[in-house]
């Protein structure tokens, strides 16, 4: 964990209510896909925890959805602005358990961490399939980016306006995979937990105080004892989850 000043290189809308922001600075503490950063914004007391989409050298890419006043303020930030950011938070995904054919499932604002994960797994020689779930066509983002990595990409939308009509679990049926990784809204995680045929890792979201394990604001119970989503998570294994 490191508190660093990150400078905005670009901050642009890539889908409905969804922004991609590239930041420059010391991000050496980001060591695994699935980790997050916690951003201090002027005028807001608590920081905003945002998942890491990609981290290369000193370039950090985050993708966030505008859901409230804080993310609205982020969306209005211009290139050149700086944000104090706690980096390298959370455990991230463990790629060593993936097997040869991992399946990555991202839902909405849970899509971004799948990008760095797909990149890492592909670099490790794995055959990666990705399912990206959205509500409707205008929310879809990063399909081409995942394809450019060499992943086999399936898009689902609830209203059927693009890709398979339905939920990510509809696209999972009949797929052959050795392990799964997912991030998204809790009902989606629960559905994947119930229908998946392999073990896997699921990334959870919770309202946080600090983001680094001090306040116990985001605790959950697991089969391996109490865990803090921010520090011991956000990634939990399928085996340890208690719903």
């Amino acid at each position, binding site marked *: 964990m490191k*508190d660093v000043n990150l400078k905005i290189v670009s901050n642009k809308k890539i889908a409905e209510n969804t922004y991609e922001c590239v930041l420059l600075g010391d991000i050496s503490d980001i060591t695994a896909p699935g980790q997050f950063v916690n951003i201090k914004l002027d005028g*807001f007391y608590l920081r905003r925890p945002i998942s890491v989409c990609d981290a290369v050298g000193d370039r950090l890419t985050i993708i966030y959805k505008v859901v409230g006043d804080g993310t609205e303020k982020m969306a209005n930030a211009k290139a050149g602005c700086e944000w104090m950011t706690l980096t390298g938070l959370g455990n991230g995904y463990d790629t060593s358990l993936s097997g040869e054919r991992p399946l990555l499932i991202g839902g909405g604002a849970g899509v971004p961490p799948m990008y760095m994960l797909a990149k890492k797994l592909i670099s490790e020689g794995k055959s990666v399939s990705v399912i990206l779930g959205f509500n409707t066509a205008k929310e879809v983002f990063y399909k081409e980016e995942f394809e450019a990595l060499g992943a086999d990409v399936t898009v689902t939308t609830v209203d059927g306006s693009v890709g398979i009509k339905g939920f990510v679990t509809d696209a999972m049926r009949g797929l052959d995979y050795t392990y799964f990784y997912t991030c998204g809204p809790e009902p989606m995680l629960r559905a994947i937990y119930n229908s998946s045929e392999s073990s896997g890792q699921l990334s959870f979201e919770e309202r946080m105080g600090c983001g680094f394990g*001090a306040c116990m604001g985001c*605790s959950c119970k697991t089969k391996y004892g109490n865990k803090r989503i921010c520090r011991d998570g956000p990634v939990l294994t399928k085996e340890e989850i208690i719903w």
Partner: protein
Amino acid sequence: MTNTKVNLCGIELSNPIIPASGTFGFGYEFAELYDINVLGTLSFKGTTLEPRFGNPTPRIAECASGMLNAVGLQNPGVDKVISDELPKLRSVFSKPVMANVSGFGVDEYTETVRRLDTEECIGWFEINISCPNVHGGGMSFGTSCEMAERVTRAVRDVTKKPIIIKLSPNVTDIVSIAKACEAGGADGVSLINTLLGMRIDLKKRKPIIANKTGGFSGPAIKPVAVRMIYQVWEAVKIPIVGMGGVSTAEDVIELMLAGATAVEVGAENLVNPYACRDIILDLPRAMEKYGIESLADIVGAAH
């Protein structure tokens, strides 16, 4: 040359800065960031006799200049604190620490203190009779003079170490509670714990926090803290550990002028994990600016 030393109930602190219980864990998360031996001391995570998971989530909500929390005294229980947490704390912190203890009955307070009492690293006990986030305990002791005095007296009987009673601001008259603690044999009082608050999610039309209410902390509550410290200072002879919305060296001076001998920093640790170190480094500058040679000299100087 400025002097930041203060004496809290017979133990000298190199400076008056103490991370408040519940915002600093058992210190070691912060020791990854800086040498926490710069602190005056630290008040560790509120400890109860039995392990507690605490309240359901969400436990946190943001406010203007502050936050609500309803963690509900999550802790591994006193035996695990002694076997697992204190050794880790001792490996990163060499000064006497403040043991924060909570309970749901007088016997629970005394038994927890009794078990911790033999731990050499503990310099003071901070007895929390003011947690707003647990039902049937905590705050109910802090809102009645009779109960506050009873808990103080019972704890007094099981330890010779200084006991500091942590008071709730959610009362009509905090002065009478402080006097009851003094009468019961307390060596000091600490104030203020969080103010009971609530926030509502406009989309869901429900309270944001699962517990519905939470404790309000952060810079917004500082004037309430200053007022209560000022009032209590006029009524008791025992030292006051002041807290409530402290985020700068100037805030520390303000609380000390009101009557605080030492100052706890709470919510600010969560948004700036370096907050205590930054304040300590900045104290000499602020002292010089306001013509203070020794911090110990300004305690209660606003009266």
